[in-house]
């Protein structure tokens, strides 16, 4: 199994394991179904990966994009667009031993596409508040000349810190924005589930790399 496939499956498991917590968080300013929504996405992704069989990492990425896109709502198109843009950014990479520069370019492509599609910016209390710090962390890692493994771990920490910082914000767009001040004090569910995804990818990536040594 490729490193990428192992990482994606680990992320799917982590998202599904967090279903109740994400639902509770979403119950504050939303309708409480973010955990279920992300679980539907995780199951779609697993099904598509299993059905795809032995394909390239780029094709696998496309399956992940389609699997997440199929959940619809607000989060579906956001993941689909971001992942497809990552695919476009990495399409010339024959094999997926990705450099820090590759990861940085991919994350930047995702952020631009999501920001454009969702008409959101950092500070609006959305997934971008976890994604933008992740991009910044990868830029810093690239500037320092860090290896991909170090960069990935730093990216996960940045995403989690970004997600936690949304607790102090009030939502500017989406359903929660109608709640105004009532949404302050609780983190954004979309940013939080994104942090869970990235942390799981980073953990799986590390254990894959360690296993190979």
């Amino acid at each position: 199994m490729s490193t990428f496939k192992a990482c994606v499956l680990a992320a799917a498991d982590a998202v599904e394991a967090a279903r109740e917590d994400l639902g509770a968080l979403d119950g504050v300013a939303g309708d409480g179904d973010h955990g279920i929504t992300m679980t539907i996405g995780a199951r779609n992704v697993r099904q598509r990966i299993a059905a795809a069989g032995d394909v390239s990492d780029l094709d696998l990425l496309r399956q992940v994009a389609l699997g997440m896109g199929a959940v619809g709502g607000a989060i579906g198109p956001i993941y689909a667009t971001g992942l497809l843009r990552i695919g476009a950014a990495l399409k010339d990479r024959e094999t997926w031993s990705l450099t820090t520069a590759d990861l940085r370019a991919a994350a930047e492509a995702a952020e631009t596409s999501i920001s454009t599609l969702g008409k959101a910016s950092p500070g609006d209390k959305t997934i971008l508040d976890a994604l933008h710090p992740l991009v910044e962390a990868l830029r810093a890692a690239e500037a320092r000349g860090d290896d991909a493994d170090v960069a990935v771990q730093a990216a996960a920490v940045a995403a989690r810190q970004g997600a936690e910082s949304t607790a102090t914000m009030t939502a500017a767009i989406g359903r929660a924005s109608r709640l105004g001040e009532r949404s302050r004090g609780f983190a954004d569910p979309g940013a939080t589930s994104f942090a869970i995804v990235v942390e799981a990818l980073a953990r799986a990536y590390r254990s894959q790399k360690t296993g190979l040594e």
Partner: protein
Amino acid sequence: MNQLTAAPKGILKKIINDPFDAVDEMLEGFVAAHADVVRFATPRVIARREPAVDKVGIVIGGGSGHEPAMAGYVGLGFADAAAAGNIFAAPPPDICLDAMKAASSGKGVLLIYGNYSGDILNFGLGAELAAAEGIEVRTVLVTDDVASAPRAEIEKRRGIAGDIHVFKCAGAMAERGASLDEVERIARKANAATRSMGVALSACEVPGSGRLTFDLPADQIEIGLGIHGEPGVRRGPIMPADEIAAILVDSILKDLETPSGHEFALMINGLGATSYLDQYILYRAARKELEKAGNTVSRSLVGEFITSQEMSGASVTVTILDDELRGLLDAPARTPRVVQ
């Protein structure tokens, strides 16, 4: 069965199996029960049993969990296809595209759905895909909920029960063989003539989520609360129906150019758990308020048209009628929800 595959536990009693299968099982039951009128075009697109030809196609849709909306409005005199998403979630672009293809007979497609950002995103992407396949697509967003934004920002308002009047007028116009320009004009006219406002008494639960969609103390009601639990304009103690009706009708009439002299179609929409006893009492009270203000009511609908599962509450919807809109509301229809 491990933690990852165990069916999630909800908190309200429901008649469901695995919550993750709820939407698909509901649609299968729906299509089987109404097979005289509808069929599956794809597993998440409900289309007319006999596709219409040589007319503008009407596509409606949105999240599931609002039954009988939206599939209940597919059929003669209403829509040609409905795209169904997960509970309270807009359907993804490919499903929206499937609905547009099922509805298209070469004279263009009009999308009509409630003004919600998820729906705009997904239907919008679907419309781009349809345009790439040569289907001309226009969109009308329903914005009848006066509680959701001030009059100066009317384009930000949510679509609630007013959907049904807009579907009916546009559907009837399309049935006459009108052009896409004319059907769009009618849909915009019906939307502009429609105002709604609701009151919520208790919340619903997205199957398997384990929590209610909003918190509302047992002795309180919330005026203006949305069909997904979006916050309203006022929360307070339970009050008599006449007082609720006075507040709702007053808000609606204040939102019009003039509060009097109109002929209205009046709809009371139950949100799913409110009895018909309550609905008819609210109708009586709302009608009295409209008439007291110098208006007449010539067409009426009372019932569950767009629900929020077991949410209790109801909304008042009025549409200002002229000869054109009245004729379209009166036109024949045959769908799972409406037969006339």
